[in-house]
């Protein structure tokens, strides 16, 4: 590119392409201040032109026009002229999203989050109502509990979860006995390990851990199963055919989980105590016979029943949240993933909150 003084003539040569653009921009910046009169742009020696190069030429020609001068283009090849016309017609200022006041953004986000939480809560209550009315209708025979799907789900959420639930419970029993032993040994009160393991496994840990594992395994599965049906319009198809999706999809899952979780909890209790007993024997020399005797004397059946009684409540909550989020899935795969994650987080959160509520209420009742 060269600029001649007097009647300003600018000649471009070489390759005007994206790869050369950085260097070309530099040259255009050098030439631009010299534009103080009408001029000529010689494009005859341009070897290659792409839309990026055409854009730069258009900007250079624009510099003439912006200062109120005319400019003649000479020597432009026909194919380059077509491209330059197309680019000139479409060159416009970039429109970007406006930056907003950060304080306002924070406030707006908080407001939106609060609004969403309230809506979620209301939706969950409404969904709960739909399940309860459908279940009630099933009880009086006006709708039905589908037996086979319920059994299939019971196998998936209950039976198939046995290995992981028992392993986790056993290990937690081991850990608690070991940690308790190292503390209680200082006081020569080793035998109290049995009380420690008994109360915590039966009353709290057994059911809580089982509920958390099931929320991660089955709550998320409910969301992804129902959610992918929603994505494929299968839910709409059910409605059109005249099948109530709550009756066909939700009720069997809720029933399976409400039945399955207490059974899993019983198993978790047994494995947790077993883990504790094994560790107490190995680390403290408390024989299994002593362990069972002490357990029978000190821990009444109330502890066990309190633990198990929480199971159906947790189960209902997990199923409710899992199914509800499934119905909330919109068209995209991203929303399916987001809601599956949310359903795990929400159900674990709600299970722990409810467990805390149980503790307070039971303490007030002196149980």
């Amino acid at each position, binding site marked *: 590119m060269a600029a001649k003084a007097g009647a300003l003539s600018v000649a471009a040569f070489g390759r005007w*392409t*994206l*790869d050369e*653009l*950085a260097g070309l*921009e530099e040259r255009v910046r050098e030439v631009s201040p010299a534009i103080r009169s009408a001029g000529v742009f010689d494009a005859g020696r341009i070897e290659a032109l*792409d*839309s*990026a190069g055409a*854009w730069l030429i258009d900007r250079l020609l624009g510099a003439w026009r912006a200062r109120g001068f005319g400019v003649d283009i000479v020597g432009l090849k026909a*194919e380059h002229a*077509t*491209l330059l*016309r*197309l*680019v000139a017609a*479409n*060159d*416009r*200022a*970039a*429109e*970007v*999203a406006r930056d907003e006041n950060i304080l306002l953004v924070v406030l707006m986000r908080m407001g939106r989050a609060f609004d969403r939480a309230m809506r979620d809560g209301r939706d969950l209550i409404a969904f709960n109502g739909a399940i309860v009315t459908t279940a009630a209708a099933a009880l009086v025979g006006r709708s039905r509990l589908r037996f086979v799907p319920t059994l299939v789900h019971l196998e998936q959420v209950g039976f198939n979860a046995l290995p992981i639930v028992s392993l986790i419970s056993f290990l937690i029993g081991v850990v608690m006995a070991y940690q308790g032993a190292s503390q209680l040994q200082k006081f020569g009160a080793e035998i109290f390990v049995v009380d420690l393991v008994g109360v915590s496994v039966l009353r709290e840990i057994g059911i809580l851990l089982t509920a958390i594992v099931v929320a991660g395994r089955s709550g998320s599965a409910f969301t992804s199963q129902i959610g992918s049906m929603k994505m494929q319009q299968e839910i709409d198809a059910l409605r059109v055919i005249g099948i109530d999706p709550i009756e066909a999809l939700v009720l069997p899952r809720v029933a399976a989980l409400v039945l399955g979780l207490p059974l899993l909890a019983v198993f978790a209790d047994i494995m947790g105590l077993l883990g504790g007993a094994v560790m107490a024997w190995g680390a403290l020399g408390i024989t299994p016979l002593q362990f069972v005797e002490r357990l029978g004397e000190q821990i009444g059946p109330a502890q066990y029943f309190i633990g198990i009684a929480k199971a159906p409540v947790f189960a209902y909550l997990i199923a409710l949240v899992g199914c509800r989020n499934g119905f909330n899935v919109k068209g*995209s795969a*991203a929303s399916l993933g987001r809601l599956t994650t949310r359903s795990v987080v929400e159900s674990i959160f709600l299970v722990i909150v409810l467990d805390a509520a149980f503790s307070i209420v039971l303490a007030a009742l002196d149980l």
Partner: protein
Amino acid sequence: MTAAQDVVIRVQGLKTQFGSQVIHQGLDLEVRRGEILAIVGGSGTGKSVMLRTLLGLKKPEGGRIEVLGVEITADQDDETLRALRRRLGVLFQDGALFGELSVAENVAAPLKEHTDLSDETIEAIAALKVAMVGLPANAGPKKPSDLSGGMKKRAGLARSLALDPDILFLDEPTAGLDPIGAAAFDDLIRGLQGAMGLTVVMITHDLDTLHAICDRIAVLAEKRVTLIGPMTAMLASDHPWVREYFHGPRGRAAQPERGREAEDRE
């Protein structure tokens, strides 16, 4: 210009298979510089596999593919392949826009990756490309999820044109568009192809597109390209599938008035 320079894609004896199922066997294809070539074929004839293979996303089981003089079936170093990819643009079926980025950022992404230009220049070129595909200026800051299907395709096209590619690949560009939108998209591709000197390779089922803008058509059947040529060659062919395709009720409806009259007189 020699014949070798004229051919931008050369496929020889291509073989692809999944497990024991052979998709292509002894497939030959040549794409000439500056043409719009359409690949047609029934479901399951491996049109999409073909496209993925040409893009180097799938390694074929046999045969030789040369794209812009680079043999992609041979072992090439990363730098060569990167330089080649930079010269190819692809519009995937639903646009394949990055959902986290705005339309303008989507178009700017290849520019940021492959050039050292300033942010202002990249922004301006991205805005230019968004305008060239016929999107309104306010589409730039929008997220892909806020766009209609037709606008998503245009945004995807803008991104594929970001680096001024030599070859543009289109996967069913008009699928899912209404007839008016599809015709407008055809015009857009023809216009851009002429102005930017693109070679276009597209997969399409749209008979209107085939009639309106395609220079040559390649028919995939019997695991290879059974027929390649302009529309007149398709209409003249007596291959049963080709006859069914171009002379079936939909094929007849899509033919321009003049051609149909001539055929009715037969």
